């Protein structure tokens, strides 16, 4: 099987956007283009803002991805888990569509008898291991995130360790918002080596504004033109990913 590429935006934030477009709408736009949006909410012990929480959930819902709220100490494990879960969810969605085509009705994995699910799981696992993966990491660097940034950096290095153990190719890019001069700033262009951010990751935050929506919009523009996700399952399609650097 010649797997295609899974495209994700991983948004790491600690609360509410307060500037520009509605982030959920931008996440929905991403989804339209076959890019899923996973969201991780990093909170301090005991401080869980209801409004922030529901924004985090709705961005991920709109973006067809996974969300998880965690304390900073658990960030590393969560980042890799959410990324994996997001991948599995994407692949599973594609497999479900494929099943529906074959079986001709709204059939999902869950509708099959338990004994028949095993093989499908194997296909999903196989794709998760071998598919190409593009992750655009979008980090909220507004003032309240300041003391969490070292943890975010650690978590991203840990993510590259997890993903680089896969057989498939990985490409990463990192954006922060707000940027020094604009709403969003590109920190790292598409590269297989996420470790490259070690020396350039910001230690300082850049202000109180949180333009999550605009940041998502910008991030979207950074993905190349894509083929459909359906081709994940077909053998004839060439991997579409072109080196962007």
């Amino acid at each position, binding site marked *: 099987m010649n797997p295609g590429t899974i495209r994700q935006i991983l948004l790491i934030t600690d609360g509410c956007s307060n500037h520009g477009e509605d982030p959920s709408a931008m996440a929905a736009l991403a989804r339209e283009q076959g890019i899923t949006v996973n969201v991780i909410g990093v909170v301090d012990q005991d401080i869980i803002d209801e409004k922030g929480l529901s924004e985090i959930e709705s961005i991920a819902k709109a973006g067809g991805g996974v969300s*998880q709220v965690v304390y900073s100490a658990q960030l590393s494990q969560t980042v890799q888990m959410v990324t994996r879960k997001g991948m*599995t969810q994407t692949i599973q969605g594609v497999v479900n569509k494929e099943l529906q085509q074959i079986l001709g009705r709204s059939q999902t994995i869950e509708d099959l008898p*338990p004994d028949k699910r095993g093989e499908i799981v194997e296909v999903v696992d196989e794709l998760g291991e071998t598919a190409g993966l593009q992750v655009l990491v979008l980090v909220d660097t507004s003032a309240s995130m300041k003391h969490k940034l070292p943890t975010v950096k650690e978590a991203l290095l840990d993510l590259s360790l*997890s993903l680089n*153990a896969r057989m498939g190719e990985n490409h990463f890019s990192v954006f922060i918002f707000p940027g020094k001069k604009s709403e969003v700033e590109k920190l790292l262009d598409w590269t297989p080596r996420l470790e490259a951010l070690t020396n350039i990751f910001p230690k300082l935050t850049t202000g109180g504004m949180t333009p999550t929506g605009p940041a998502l919009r910008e991030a979207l523009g950074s993905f190349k033109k894509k083929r459909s996700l359906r081709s994940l399952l077909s053998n004839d399609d060439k991997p579409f990913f072109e080196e962007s650097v």
Partner: protein
Amino acid sequence: MMINHSLRNQYKVSPGTVIKGKWYNHEYRIIKELGNGANGIVYLADCHGQDAALKISDNSMSISSEINILKSFAKVRGCTLGPSLLAVDDWAVKDKVFPFYVMEYIKGENYLDFIKKGDSWTAVLILRLLKNLSLLHGMGYIFGDLKPENLIISAPAGDVRFVDVGGITPIGRSIKEFTEFFDRGYWGMGSRKADPAYDLFAAAMIFINSYYPKRFGRKGEGLSELTRAVNEHKELRRYEKVILKALMGKYDTADSMREELLRIISQNSAKGGIPNQGTKEPSLVQSRTARKKKTKGRHLESLILVLLISFIYILYIYSRLL
């Protein structure tokens, strides 16, 4: 700690609840909760008058892949690495469907509780763990999320059994599930690619965890921190050579680690008994230099003595455990 778990409440059930399979119509009466983790909840259940463990979740992918692993265990004759699989079904409740499977209930204690009895068991259990790993690796799998919570020491024989097969990964693939303290990637000591050395690293960390029940986090350079932890503990220092080699990924197979550990144990016992609480033992390093000083003539004599005593010791262990 993960924070939001809304679905989980729907399959978190109280004792007495009857779970009826939607496909095969068998009934399972919940007795109590045995444990829960990232991928679901495990209950002790009554299944036609017999105790069984029932794992239920909202994630049919993870449940199905665990079932796949348990099924492949079943194909190997006499394989008792994990629980045997008894049934597979879905539970329909209200408008939701939760997949579950029923497996053998392994009666016993988890590793850390078990060794509270006295640490003369520690080395024996690590030997047994390594034997299990050797079998599992032979089947082409890595355990992945190896940690004391996933090892049940069955009563009364003291056999080591694996529970939570969710992290089991074919060799050559990437590790999906891990726990930081036991993960060589976390300590900066290697990749997360599934190879036998990945599990052996975790086995060495279980050894360390046996003497540091609270565990500890990484603060600086991984290897030097772990080396210090081993050196600072008298009982661990005795096994320093094996532990450090495993941490550094120097063993390709569980068997080679096991053989070396066995050698050290027999040297120790030749030097004055089974490692036990409170006994003052010379460290491994000392005993090695001491041996070097012996004259050639005495060499053979002491070798025979060591062999004889280790033989008796092994006999002793087996008679105790069988």
